[in-house]
């Protein structure tokens, strides 16, 4: 069993009379990419800020590499990438990397090598000496991430690192995160992009109302919530005159749907039944249970303020 590098136990925090965390717990293991999901106001940012030392918990504890963390504790093993693009727009990419590198404690000797690495890692080496204000949103995002990892933290907290960027930049950021993991960095990723969490994360923690609603791998979450059943959709020319067993008609008048446990065993029977009823099937789609379904299952459809 892998060692837990970062642990949060029973974290509690209220702002005035509003509870933000009500006993949230999680564990990030060494080398892992853990997704932290939740609706707006669920407590994700408070939890991440507590780990970063920016929020003092009312109760509970946080430990990094076996050492209890208080807000004033040094956090050299920790890197933080905020959701805002927190870089200086008037400075060049290189200058931003230099100042944040120094603030994170890098020596003057080590700085040039780390800055060169970061520029190559982000693909910004050709634009290193341009002011950031001339950069595209994707370039700024990449620089934003780089400023948090110059000091080679063992754990990196990423808050919505791909919000507002185009698919190409997002792919590049995924590559950057993958390269970080290969170097042994553990990542805690907060995101609303469920496909991103589904594709990238080893495990996922869903938080709501300041508590952990569920955690585990995607398969574990699916199994414990919406189940493994798959949805089969048949596109048909015309709906049958009388209902078919196990196939429900959708409102568009051209789709029949069914939920199956075993696609290989159950799909042929459904197709035969449709053919026998004189239904012409033009297309078949099978969709597995998604993180989206799990998320809605766990947190509901009600809008959050």
């Amino acid at each position, binding site marked *: 069993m892998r060692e837990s590098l970062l642990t949060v136990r029973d974290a509690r925090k209220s702002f005035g009379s509003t509870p933000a965390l009500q006993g949230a717990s999680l564990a990030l293991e060494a080398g892992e990419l853990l997704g932290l999901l939740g609706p707006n106001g669920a407590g994700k940012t408070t939890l991440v800020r507590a780990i970063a030392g920016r929020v003092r918990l009312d109760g509970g504890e946080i430990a990094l590499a076996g050492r209890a963390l208080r807000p004033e504790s040094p956090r050299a093993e920790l890197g933080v990438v*905020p959701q805002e693009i927190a870089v200086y727009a008037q400075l060049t990419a290189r200058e931003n990397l230099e100042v944040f590198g120094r603030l994170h404690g890098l020596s003057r000797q080590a700085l040039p090598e780390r800055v060169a690495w970061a520029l190559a890692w982000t693909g910004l080496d050709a634009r290193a000496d341009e002011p950031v204000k001339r950069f595209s949103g994707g370039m700024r995002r990449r620089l934003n991430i780089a400023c*948090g990892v110059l000091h080679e933290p063992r754990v990196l907290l990423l808050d919505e690192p791909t919000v507002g960027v185009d698919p190409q930049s997002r792919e590049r950021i995924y590559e950057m995160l993958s390269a970080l993991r290969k170097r042994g960095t553990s990542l805690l990723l907060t995101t609303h992009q469920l496909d991103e969490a589904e594709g990238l994360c080893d495990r996922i923690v869903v938080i709501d109302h300041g508590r952990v609603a569920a955690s585990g791998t995607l398969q574990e979450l699916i199994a414990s919530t919406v189940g493994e059943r798959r949805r089969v959709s048949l596109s048909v020319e015309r709906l049958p005159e009388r209902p078919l067993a196990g196939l429900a008609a959708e409102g568009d008048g051209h789709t029949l749907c069914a939920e199956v446990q075993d696609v290989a065993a159950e799909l042929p029977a459904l197709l035969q039944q449709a053919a026998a009823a004189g239904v012409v099937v033009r297309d078949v789609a099978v969709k597995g249970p998604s993180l989206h379904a799990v998320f809605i299952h766990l947190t509901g459809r009600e809008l959050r303020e």
Partner: protein
Amino acid sequence: MIATVLRISRLNLSRDRVAQLMAFVLPLAFFSIFALVFGQQPRRSPNPVRVALVDEDRTDASRAFVKALEHEAALRPLTTAPPRGGPASAASVPLDRPRAESLVKDGDAPAAVVLPAGFGAAFGSAGTPPRAELLVDPSDPIATPLLRGLLQKAAATAQPKAFARRGLEMFEKYAGGMTPQQRGLMDAWLNQAAAGDGAGEAAGAGVAELLGVDVHEVVGQRGPDGSMVAFFAAGVGVMFLLFSCSAAGGALLEEVESGTLERLLSTPLGMGRLLAGKWLFITLTGVLQVTLMFTWGALVFGLELLSHLAGFALMTLATAGAAAGFGLVLATACRSRGQLSGIGTIVILMMSALGGSMFPRFLMSEKMQKLGLFTFNGWALDGYIKVFWRNAPLVELWPQLLVLVLLTAAFLTIARRLARRWETA
């Protein structure tokens, strides 16, 4: 459509307290301050002008002249003062010329009147009119013309008979003698005038330049165009220093809004060192700004910077340090850059008006002058005036430097406390 645009603007204004303050409260505040600065009630006579009186002649005529000045409601004469360099509580001694001059140089009085030996003898003679000396601080543009007029009046009221006789002698010399009857009537009138029934004032009003006045500027520096360069360099310099420090403090709020503050505080930097770094930078920028302004004054307007370099350096360092601290207080007290801009403008303009950046404090009422000492500008300007106007030795700057240093410490302490809201929640 236009009604919709009006509605949007009205709604925005109704929810923007700073904009409301700027539009409706600031003008009233300024009006009130200027009304106070220029005199609370228009019918009240202006504040009496303090004037040092030195009688070197010590004759009946000079004593009568001093007495006439002492009766002037527009003057507050000083004939005695504690010895220079001694404690303020020391017994007062009659003023002599050096002591009177030092009172003007030190800013204790805007002018001194010296009646030199021979003053009394010149009264009543047909030759050269008597002469008095006026030692003035030209930074007070009111005291000199006021005293010129009052000296003429005092001459006429103190010695009406002598002046009238002198006039008659001149008349007889150039126009021929009077008949015995005319001379008898004239003597009767002069005796009546000497009894003080007001005819003396009438006589004084009718004769121009009864008394020669030699004006000596004993302090201050005027540029080639006669303007009070040093005073305005300091006044404008300190006001703009406050504006630029407030704007520089806004960089802290920019850090909050852009998220870089959150990132900075996630590093080992800490809020204390962040504020110290910001304060140091704003101070150095302020020193550069004021130095640039005084250098420009020296190059273009003949300001004597080089001969006052040490005092200038001390005052500029202390002033810029305190202004930077003040900028940080404003920045940490405000919630946004918009709020900082509005509140900063209001506070700085008020402090500048009260503190003498816009209108010299020594021309304000005594109450307003004291109120001005509650402002940052008041102390800074007093220090610069000591350096450039009064050529004061460095050691005499200690009250201003001490206050500015204490203000800096207070500002930094307040800013540090206010900045706690950005620290760990």
